[in-house]
């Protein structure tokens, strides 16, 4: 057994799962806006198997090379201020990873508010770009804490549209426990893989609706030695990924 691979943290497994979302995307903008792990994933994909991807420094600069998390661009290859980014949503050369506050079995998502929209019990961000992203661009989701609060029977305000409401393409949902997709005849959410150390029952218990569970649920791919090196030494030397997905205490 490769000891390097055995030592990969959960956050690193998640980052690689996020990187895998971009496989085959080519020269499109990777808009990984949902947090450190998907941002790291997009830059890792670009550093390894998907070199054509366009990535930003978190601001409006498209960077000539993938930059470490939190770093400004060294060499800039393009400019994508908010107004052009919003037009690019219509143009389509973009794959976005968002973070849902609620998501249902068809991938309808809510980031606007909890409760009745007219008088919410908890106001959140607002719909932001959810309606446009999901209608027009490949969209994936990142959930750092998989729970029945997030995976709900019904979402309170559909801000991102699901497979039953005209979504362009919902590719997958990566969480701290598993990878889920919509690869079923009725486009319902399915368990694609569980991360190392996670049982299928753990995912079922943390999900507030019935998941499609294949007879065999594979293990999520582990980072290889080169991917671990790039994450640890180049793209995230400060370990911001571990803050988003804390590793369980080791014995």
């Amino acid at each position, binding site marked *: 057994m490769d000891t390097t691979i055995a030592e990969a943290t959960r956050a690193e497994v998640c980052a690689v799962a996020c990187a895998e979302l971009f496989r085959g995307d080519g020269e499109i903008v990777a808009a990984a806006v949902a947090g450190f792990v998907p941002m790291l994933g997009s830059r890792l994909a670009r550093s390894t198997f998907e070199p054509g991807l366009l990535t930003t420094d978190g*601001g*409006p*600069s498209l960077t000539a090379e993938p930059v470490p998390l939190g770093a400004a661009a060294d060499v800039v290859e393009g*400019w994508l*201020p*908010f*107004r052009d980014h*919003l*037009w690019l*949503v*219509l143009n389509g050369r973009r794959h976005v990873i968002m973070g849902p506050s609620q998501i249902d079995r068809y991938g309808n998502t809510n980031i*606007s*508010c909890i409760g009745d*929209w*007219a*008088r*919410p*019990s*908890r*106001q*959140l*961000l*607002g*719909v*932001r*770009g*959810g*309606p*446009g992203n*999901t*209608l*027009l661009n490949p969209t994936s989701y990142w959930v750092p804490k998989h729970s029945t609060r997030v995976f709900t029977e019904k979402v309170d*305000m*559909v*801000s*991102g*549209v699901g497979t039953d*409401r*005209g*979504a362009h393409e919902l590719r997958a949902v990566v969480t701290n426990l598993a990878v889920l997709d919509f690869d079923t005849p009725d486009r319902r959410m399915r368990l694609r893989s569980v991360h190392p150390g996670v049982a299928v029952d753990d995912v079922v218990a943390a999900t507030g609706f019935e998941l499609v569970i294949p007879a065999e649920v594979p293990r999520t791919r582990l980072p290889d030695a080169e991917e671990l090196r790039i994450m640890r030494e180049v793209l995230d030397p400060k370990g911001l990924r571990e803050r988003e997905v804390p590793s369980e205490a080791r014995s």
Partner: protein
Amino acid sequence: MSKVLTIEEIVGSLESGMTIGIGGWGSRRKPMALVRAICRSPLTDLTVVTYGGPDVGLLCAAGKVRRLVTAFVTMDSIPLEPHFRQARQTGAIELTEYDEGMFMFGLYAAAHRLPFLPTPVGLGSDVMKINPGLKTVRSPYEDGTELVAVPALTMDAALVHMNRADARGNAQYLGPDPYMDDLFAKAADRTYVSCERLVDTADLAKEGPPQSMLISRAHVAGVVETPNGAHFTDCAPDHGRDEAFQKLYAKSAADPEQWAAFRDRFLSGDEAAYQDAVRVWREEK
């Protein structure tokens, strides 16, 4: 030819019940000096049109907002805005909520005197449900596509904060993103620019390239120099976001007693008093 005004003259020209656009984005390049001045004015019953940040929070906390038109309210490094949340959760304000691209189309329409602009965005989402006035149109061409007609986001007045401006009202941004400030300027019946530094017209070209001169005097009714006037939001390259102060703001906003103390200390006087209080606070840290 000079359009230089004071903060008080600008806010004094606004009226209760108006629709006011505010430039910037989230907690970035917000005309906070003008927002603070509105908070201490007698204005009420405002409809505020903005990509929301702490401008929305402060105006909600001061009871100035009747309706908010927005796609989000955030402080970026602190995702949620406490005063805005409270205003929504207590039902203190009405809301018109759009996708952020739809919102931009509304600005483009208003800026160009179009009644609406079409976009597919919004279809299928609950934006159509909570915004029942939104209508759809069909492409008159062979494709026959159904599209949302985003109505023009017209406004009585707009407030934007820029890095440089001249006395005529030409205004320049030096940061990495223009946001939608020129669209706000064109969409409003009249626009007021606050700026970090007022310079001679001849010096604009020394500060940045021609394309950084974002807003033409043709769209500006008045200009005021307010150094650090975007505080505590980001105003690159003049200054970044004051993260420590923003944290203090968010923490104070979450608790009525702490908010009263924050308000007394920072918001009870005019803009000069605010800047002094911030300076003293920073020295004490």
